[in-house]
């Protein structure tokens, strides 16, 4: 049986198993080009409620473009994007902002606001979403709670420039979860970190997923990260979902393009 047939059968089997599960992200035939560079060529993907899905691909393969299209930071050339039952393309700014409060986004470089303290960084996402908690709600307990979750309660009044790379990533993670999102999107969560800090971040991701029951979409090219956090994986090659399966299934594949990801 060739690899395509095998893959199709697996996807069909997974789909039938997932009938009961709610789809929280549905991407269909996503296409995006930058001039002559066709980054996404009909990418398809589904994320189910409570699932940890890892999308792996080489640098420049379009992983970050795909994740940015998901939250409306970038417009795809064509394709269908549905998040939590809403089609992104049809939403006005206000509805999109409300939907975004259910989606946490951990940026590759942490993206902490330079001019604000850690406290202000964490309070910032709460400004527009205070209606969820009431206008006069005290945000301090929420800020302290997320900081304790990432083990950095002592850093509350520090500026981002005073933090190490690992601390910045933890604070960014705290900012991501402060609105208690239903989905968390991780864009290269371990890139630029040393192996020990990477492990700490991975552990943190797992504990957060356990505590808040979020669905996670993790974009990475770090095989160790994928092995530890993934329940299911999608390999993004040549702009399409080239292969899908569990870590064990994909890492034992004989397909040269799949093998290339797992070679030490």
């Amino acid at each position, binding site marked *: 049986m060739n690899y395509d047939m095998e893959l199709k059968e697996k996807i069909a089997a997974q789909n039938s198993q997932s009938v009961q599960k709610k789809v929280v992200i549905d991407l269909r035939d996503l296409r995006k080009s930058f001039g002559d560079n066709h980054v996404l060529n009909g990418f398809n993907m589904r994320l189910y409620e409570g699932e940890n899905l890892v999308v792996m691909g080489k640098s420049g393969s379009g992983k970050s473009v795909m994740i940015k299209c998901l939250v409306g930071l970038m417009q795809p050339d064509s394709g269908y994007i549905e998040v939590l039952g809403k089609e992104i393309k049809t939403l006005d700014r206000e509805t999109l902002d409300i939907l975004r409060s259910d989606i946490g986004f951990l940026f590759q470089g942490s993206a902490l606001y330079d001019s604000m303290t850690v406290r202000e960084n964490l309070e*910032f996402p709460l400004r*527009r979403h205070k209606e969820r908690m009431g206008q006069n709600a005290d945000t301090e307990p929420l800020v302290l709670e997320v900081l304790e979750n990432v083990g950095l309660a002592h850093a509350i009044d520090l500026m981002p420039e005073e933090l190490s790379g690992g601390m910045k990533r933890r604070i960014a993670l705290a900012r991501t979860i402060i609105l208690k999102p239903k989905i968390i999107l991780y864009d290269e969560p371990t890139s630029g970190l040393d192996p020990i800090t990477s492990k700490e971040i991975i552990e943190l991701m797992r504990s957060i997923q356990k505590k808040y029951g979020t669905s996670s979409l993790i974009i990475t090219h770090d095989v160790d990260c994928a092995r530890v956090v993934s329940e299911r994986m999608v390999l993004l090659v040549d702009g399409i979902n080239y292969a899908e399966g569990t870590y064990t299934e994909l890492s034992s594949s004989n397909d040269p393009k799949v093998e290339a990801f797992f070679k030490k």
Partner: protein
Amino acid sequence: MELALQAKKNIKHFFTEIGELSHFAGRFFREFLKPPFEFKELLRQCYQVGNRSLVLVLVTGFIIGLVLTLQSRPTLIQFGAVSMMPNMVGISIVREIGPVITALICAGRIASGIGAELGSMKVTEQIDAMEVSGTNPFKYLVVTRILATTLMLPLLVVFGDLVALYGSALVENLKGDVSFQLYFNTVFDALSYGDLVPATVKSFFFGFVIGLVGCYKGYHSKKGTAGVGIAANTAVVMASLLVFVVDFIAVFVSDIFYEL
């Protein structure tokens, strides 16, 4: 042939830039009128803009007043018109030199600062982070900064003018034995609304273009740290050039207005 192609490319780039800047200005007016309003950030930016440039404006203003008087004195003495010094210096500073010099200093200081700040926020994905957290970054970052420069520049011009006149009065006091009171009385007698109103109005426009260009360059800076430097640099060049264009239009319009 190559020269012609390059010229064609430059002209196309120039008009594209003008078009994009106009579109950016249009977006500013649309977003500016829509709630929610970021008052706290606006106040913070007003403080930043004022604080960032005040000392520089004061020092430059003082030197300009001093130098202008020292340079003009011998010629006015030659024509027996040294008593006209306060009138000449007062009108030239209030109508032209004060607003333009202050605007140029702010173009260098504020436009480059805004360009570099927004450029680095863009490169480090802070603007994207703001967007996904449900805050409109254009309103929060751009609208507040443009409003702050528009509101603060006339204030800086007033301070700059006063210090320049003080510098001029100091020279007259030391060299011509003219009291400060007499000097300032003569200056204010010589000034009319026709001098003050156009100068103040054009200062608002100077502030607007400085904020607009700084934000436009920073907000559209290309990826990478080199892009941040380019954004800051081109913001200064473009803002300075636009200050002169706005000045020309303002003088032209006020001339027509006063002829009627």
